[in-house]
């Protein structure tokens, strides 16, 4: 699982996740997301190259979202594939973290 971050205009941090967000990989994602959630208020998590989202992986997204939201910031998700979108929907997480399918609308939601 690859995790990269880049700083975008307007104070937005983009986190790009690639691979499977499963039991094996979620601890690494957890610790990276914890650092990001600790210091960034506008976070875009790019899921376009995430092939699988398991229950542990879901926690790795919800935990930082709650921290950021609690501080008055925003976190959005971008571009889940069909499987990932279904997990977000069935779990009710899409109601907690806004899901966008286009980069522009995701960026707009953070501005």
């Amino acid at each position: 699982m690859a995790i990269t971050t880049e700083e975008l205009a307007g104070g937005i941090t983009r986190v790009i996740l690639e691979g499977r967000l499963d039991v094996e990989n979620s601890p690494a994602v957890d610790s990276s997301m914890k650092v990001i959630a600790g210091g960034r208020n506008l976070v875009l998590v790019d899921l376009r190259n995430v092939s699988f989202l398991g229950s542990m992986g879901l926690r790795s997204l919800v935990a930082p979202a709650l921290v950021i939201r609690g501080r008055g910031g925003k976190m959005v998700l971008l571009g889940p594939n069909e499987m990932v979108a279904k997990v977000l929907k069935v779990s009710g997480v899409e109601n907690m973290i806004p899901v966008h399918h286009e980069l522009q609308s995701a960026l707009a939601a953070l501005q």
Partner: protein
Amino acid sequence: MSELSHVEQIVEHIYQKYRNIDEGDVATYIPELAKANPEHFGICLVTVDGRIVHAGEWEQEFTIQSICKPFAFQMALEQFGRDDTLKRVGVEPSGEAFNSIELDPKTMRPFNPMINAGAIAISSLIKTEPPELGVQQFVERMQVAAGRPLRIDQAVLASESLTGNRNRAIAYLMLNCGVIDGEVNSTLEQYFSQCSLLVNCQDLAMMAATLANMGTNPVTHERVFDFQYIKDVLTVMFTCGLYDHAGEWAYRVGLPAKSGVAGGILGIVNRQLGIAVYSPKLDAKGNSVRGILACRDLANELGLHAFEFTNIGSNFMQSML
């Protein structure tokens, strides 16, 4: 990729991840069990709509051992009702080992039907005199739940009967306390026979899925169990199914489950899924080492824990909100 393909991939990954774990020991207290191949490791999941996922040696047969206990409890509840069944056995976790020779000092009943004492009390209820008919009724019910003919391993049965002095002692203690009737040999014949039923992972997963599916086999669609007692059975499995590991299991896996000393573990996701894992090497508490690891990963990956944040408490309540 379909959802089931994702599940297939997860199950295969878990199989590969743990197949070389070599901890634990094969049970030897029933000599015939010591002949099991410690390498064997099988996993099977059956959904309530009848889809089946396998990995490893899922066809390998082994004796059901203590995994017979929830099914015998279900049969006793159906035959005698809650009140009369609970006169013979409690529903409290004992925190004791599976073969504990101890009754609840307040009630003088066994603590619960998942430990040997409680299961023997249940066998006393569902046995017949002579015992052949009661054994046959149990095997027939298990066959319908598994969806295929099953048989008793006569070598294991003989081995259990020959070496089961501790269980004999438990039975006589309960006779002394008035928990069971005087037909102790028939009771033990029923109990040892139940434990010696040969199953494979798919049989167990199908039986688990039958409980999950309100008592109807999800493939044959035959009604097997009365659904109004399944909640009773799942509750006792949740709190007592893994003996003195039950609290740790509820904490880490969070599913009703039952283990057996041959190396099987059966788990249930209510209204959704039956799970079975087989691997004969056991930890010090008598539970399959690879089985516990596999179930933990399944629960974590698939969000199976009863209190996982994604699981909504009551669908019925949802309709009231």
